């Protein structure tokens, strides 16, 4: 099939820069599965903070996990957000999974807003949560094994998710370069078609400048 015909209508089309389709299910499903693992770990810690379970399992640092989950910092966050911080983390990981599942296998072109929302949930929030977990050793003075596991998962999710976000941002950048129109970029962001967006997407698929 000629590249032009393939790029115009097919959904599962590789992007030249990566050599694969960053919105393909084989790229997104592992992200969703890993995010759900982190979600269940965070829910487990939230259940301890709600006192639905009497203890928090930690095979490495022993009682330090409880010290972290019951720390002043944790209580202060609960005072701000009205729910345990682990529940907030669980919500963020569930967001990764839900936003990872939503959209077609060409959503980087057809719904850039969804990819960028997914990217905001995964990348900045993931990095911030990982930094906060590492800082807990210095601020709280205790380490939490399950928090460290979720921090590692966050960083893996960042690595797995960046390609799709990159392609969507590059699409918007190319539309801007072609039109210098904020309105066209804005419409492309929200998934509205235009000649410039179609051409930019084709360039990304074919790897032309």
């Amino acid at each position: 099939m000629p590249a032009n015909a393939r790029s115009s209508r097919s959904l599962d089309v590789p992007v030249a820069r990566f050599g694969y389709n960053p919105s393909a299910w084989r790229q997104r499903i592992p992200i969703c599965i890993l995010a759900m693992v982190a979600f269940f770990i965070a829910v487990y810690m939230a259940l301890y903070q709600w006192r639905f379970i009497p203890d928090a399992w930690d095979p490495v640092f022993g009682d330090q996990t409880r010290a972290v989950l019951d720390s002043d910092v944790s209580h202060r966050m609960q005072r701000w957000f009205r729910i345990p911080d682990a529940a907030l983390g669980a919500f963020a990981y569930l967001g990764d999974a839900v936003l990872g599942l939503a959209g077609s296998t060409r959503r980087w072109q057809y719904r850039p807003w969804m990819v960028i929302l997914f990217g905001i949930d995964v990348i900045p929030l993931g990095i911030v949560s990982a930094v906060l977990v590492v800082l807990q050793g210095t601020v709280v003075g205790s380490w939490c094994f399950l928090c460290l596991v979720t921090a590692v998962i966050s960083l893996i999710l960042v690595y797995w998710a960046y390609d799709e976000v990159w392609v969507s941002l590059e699409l918007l950048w190319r539309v801007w370069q072609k039109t210098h129109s904020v309105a066209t970029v804005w419409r492309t962001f929200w998934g509205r078609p235009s000649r410039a967006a179609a051409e930019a997407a084709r360039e990304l698929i074919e790897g032309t400048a």
Partner: protein
Amino acid sequence: MWARVVEIMLACWLAVSPLVFRQAEATATLWAIDLAAAALIAVFALASFWPPTRHAHLAIIAVSGALIAAGMMSPYPPSPTDQNHILVGLLLLLIAVVPSDASRPPASWESFDEPS
């Protein structure tokens, strides 16, 4: 349409949650708030199945915002009911932004005549 189904399931949870989180105070008020919110969510989610009102699910964002605000304005420590409102509001906020036909390209792209 899976997102709309999840919204209806959350509306059902909200409708029965006064039974789960029984409180001595303000039981009638709690029932009224939760049933009204659940009814609105269910109506908006169901309306999204009808093509002329396919974007009705976006109105659920307002309902979820109200639920979150109600929970956040509660006195500290928050009751289980308040925390339930915040969590259900957050979940609805997440689900309500997902388009009904998310796994297909938008209709405007499907009908767009791409340049050759």
